[in-house]
């Protein structure tokens, strides 16, 4: 059986979280969606994933939230062996330059999406990042192919067959 790869969405605004989940709903049957309303809740969720041995392919995280902010959470994850490889996406309306630079340099930010984002932009970004995660882990892309960006899926398959040779 193929490995479970989850997606974690973090935002303190329920409405935004709803929209994010709705946009990513088509991925859910292959990539379980986890949601969290704060960084603290996201950490609980990470603990649960760690216990269950579930991988986390992508985290989509807001920056400005009550309590710990998103960039700090991403930086902490980059320093944790288990989540270092997770693709990190910042989804924010108001991260300042300093926070953004920190996210890029210290959290190895994979993508930055400014709110409000274009229809399906988030979906494309997450699909691409899932592909990159699968490639980085060297997983068999076949079970996930349906959800990856077409060009990327082809490249992954070619890579696989090259490796088999």
């Amino acid at each position: 059986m193929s490995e479970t790869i989850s997606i974690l969405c973090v935002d303190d605004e329920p409405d935004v979280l709803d929209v994010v989940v709705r946009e990513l709903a088509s991925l859910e049957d292959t990539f379980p969606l986890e949601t969290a309303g704060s960084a603290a809740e996201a950490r609980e969720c990470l603990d649960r994933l760690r216990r269950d041995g579930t991988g986390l392919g992508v985290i989509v995280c807001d920056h400005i939230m009550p309590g710990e902010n998103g960039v700090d959470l991403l930086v902490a994850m980059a320093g944790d062996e288990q989540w270092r490889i997770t693709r990190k996406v910042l989804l924010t309306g108001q991260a300042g330059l300093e926070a953004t630079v920190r996210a890029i340099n210290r959290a190895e930010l994979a993508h930055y999406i400014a709110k409000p984002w274009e229809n399906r932009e988030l979906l494309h970004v997450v699909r691409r990042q899932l592909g990159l995660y699968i490639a980085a882990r060297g997983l068999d892309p076949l079970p996930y192919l349906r959800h990856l960006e077409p060009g990327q899926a082809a490249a992954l398959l070619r890579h696989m067959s090259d490796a088999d040779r």
Partner: protein
Amino acid sequence: MPDELPDLTTTEALEHLVRRARGLGREPEHLPAGTPLLHEGRINRSLYILLEGTARQYKSDFRGGAIPVDFLGPGSLLGILSFWTGQPAFTESVAYTDLTVLRLDRDDFDRGVARDPEFTRLTQQLFVSNLSDRYRRVVGLNLEVAGLTRELEQERNALQDAIADLRETRNQLIHQEKLAVMGQLLAGIAHEINNPSAALMKSLELVTREMPNLFEEGSPEQRLFSAGFSAPYLSSEESRERMGELQQRYPALGRSLCRRLSRMNEESLNVLDPDLRKGKLETVARRTGIFEIGTALHGMTVAEERIRRLVRSVKSYSREENQESCSTHLEECIRDTLTVLNHRLKHYNLRLELADLPALHCCPGEINQIITNLLTNACDATEPGRTITIRTGASEEWVRVEVQDEGHGIPEELLESIFESTVTTKSGGADFGLGLGLAISRELAQKHQGTLTASNVPGGGALFRLELPLW
């Protein structure tokens, strides 16, 4: 002996001296005004004894100009130093009026001293009185210089104070101007948002009203739509639990459909239960979609209300008429300010202890400005996640607003001076303003006959109290 003779007046001494000089073959000379007597920097071989008229002394300054130094009257000796020491003349001397002088050369003088004790005595008296005059003048000049220096010092201090005052006033004006411009911008933006927002609201009302009529009365669709419209929001935790339950109940369901169903109450689930059991997932998905349209419409209505509330707060926070006094409820000022500052305050645990306050005659714009300043200061001083408290209260004569934080407090020695402009306890320079916030706030409080004071709370944190009279 000449020594025993009584001192003569200067006039008498001069008359005597003229007579004695005649014995040496010297007659008084008349010089017209403007005649030069001594040239600065040149060797001088004569001693001039001024008998009548006024001479003027000049000293050249380093730029080559001649600065008037002194006027000399009858009885004065000119060239005394150069004559005596053989050094070049120290000053320039010119006849200011027509003069009568007695000029003695070295030779005349030596002969006089050798032959005539009376000549010696008279010249000595003149020397001494000239020297003591000059000495007195030097002392007087020094006193004068000291006085002038003191005056200058005072004037300089006054000027410095005036410059500091001006600078402060200018900064306050800039600050006020900035706030005014920002207020106008805010009001403009609020107005621009207001129109599309009103259109949105009207459309939402229409859709919400008409939507149920699209479905048959009492049909599953209609029930699901209204259930969706009133479905409560589930936290991530709750929705996860609910999803777990649903997956147990309907093992064949995918996660995605489970998540969509997780927001439904039992009643709605009962509506879908037959389809779920029969595995008619397409129907379930379609009907869930209708439930979700209900939820989405409700979400839009809530979001729209939020926009309207924000616009209303921004307008009343920044509107022009706020600059005039009117009957005001402080609680409204506080709520408006809270809405406008929401982006900062949402990082803190905000505690509101608002008493029932009587209306107050004041200028709401300025009260907003004070409360905004106190709240932003509290945010700057407090770690995110800690508590900021806003407390109000009233007595017979006063109402008060307190803003308390859990920050580092204010050093005791700064409790009063913190209200002076440019005193700030905030570090980090560029992030912060001009250090004028509290100075302006206190001024605005005083303008309302009120007070603004600071204290520290036991256990850490600062407490600012604004008290305004009820009149």
